[in-house]
């Protein structure tokens, strides 16, 4: 059975989706991720979807749910590397993944997460969202 590998980098988890996702593979990933967050005490999750040629409502929902669940588990999720054609299609479909943070690539995703993690470590759990959220 296909399983998406989850890599641990410091206090972050990195998932790079390289295959055309079947629905149950997506659901399994969602479960695996929440388990790994608890096991490792990770503070951030990076989901790299640069290799995904489409994101439909099922995968979109998986991403939103994962972000919401990880937030409950005290970890921030950043989706990185979405392709322009995929983004245009998602917007047309009516899915804007509100509540999910995004970055252009893994590098920028890590920077975004580190900033958030540092801020929370300083006491408040307020993430500097001054311009990212409307």
């Amino acid at each position, binding site marked *: 059975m296909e399983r998406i590998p989850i890599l641990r980098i410091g206090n972050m988890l990195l998932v790079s989706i390289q295959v055309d996702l079947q629905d149950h593979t997506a659901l399994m990933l969602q479960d695996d991720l929440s388990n790994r967050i608890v096991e490792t005490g990770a503070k951030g999750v990076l989901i790299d979807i640069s290799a995904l040629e489409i994101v439909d409502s099922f995968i979109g929902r998986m991403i939103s749910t994962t972000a919401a669940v990880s937030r409950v588990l005290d970890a921030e999720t950043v*989706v990185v590397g979405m*392709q*322009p054609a*995929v*983004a*245009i299609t998602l917007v*047309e479909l009516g899915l*804007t993944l509100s509540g999910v943070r995004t970055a252009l690539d893994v590098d920028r995703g890590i920077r975004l997460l580190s900033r958030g993690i540092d801020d929370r470590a300083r006491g408040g759990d307020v993430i500097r969202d001054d311009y*990212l959220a*409307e």
Partner: protein
Amino acid sequence: MSSQPENDWIDLLRDSRDEVIPAWTSVVEATLAGRMTTSELTNDIREIFDGLTAGDGRGSDIRAAAYDGLRALVADLGRTRARQGFSPTEAAVSIFALKTAVLELLENRADLAAYQAFAKLSRFVDDLGLYMFETYASARETVIAQQAESLLELSTPVVKLWDGIVALPLVGTLDSARTQVVMEALLQALVDTGSEHAIIDITGVAAVDTQVAQHLLKTVQAARLLGAECIVSGIRPQIAQTVVALGIEFGDIHTKASLSDAMLLAMRRSGLDVVSRA
């Protein structure tokens, strides 16, 4: 009178090949005002003339298989004239001038049979002219489509303003198709240059309708999914009023009055400050 084959005009043409071709050429040449050389024209016309007189008993239907070669020649002529930018009349004359040329020839003869043959030739040339015109028209459409496409490409100048900041200055009329192309180019540029900030400047845009505003909004949302933020600058007072009057929800789009204000905001968001040294 015994029944004649439908293309008995063929003998009429063959008998006067050396007179018809120059006459035909000179009628066409007069309308083209020196835009083609006599020898180019003579070549074109000689080919068609020979195509017309290539075989006997082929009937009067230009769509018949017997005329495949002739049709190919004529279609080629239509396409070439369209690409050379000749007007419809100028293109049509290339074929119809044959009638003028033959008629001039017959004027000095009292030959009933020849006139009867001419009447048939005239119908045939009409068909041929229409056929050429079809290919002319479709070639023109292709040319126009190609021009429209290259215009679209020309009108998507995504420029890098600073490391991580790109701008898209829009000028002219924004229709739905163009907005879509422009927006796709912008999103691609964000990814290609790794820019987290985009400024869409609409100072040069005459009007914004509901559809265009929708596309702007969608672009901002799509950019966010990529991990980038858009600022729309240069909204003129009339456009602001239309937007409000149309009830377009612009709430989700960050707007600035001028490109420089937008630039300043984008720099600040990138962690940069502009300091005066004076």
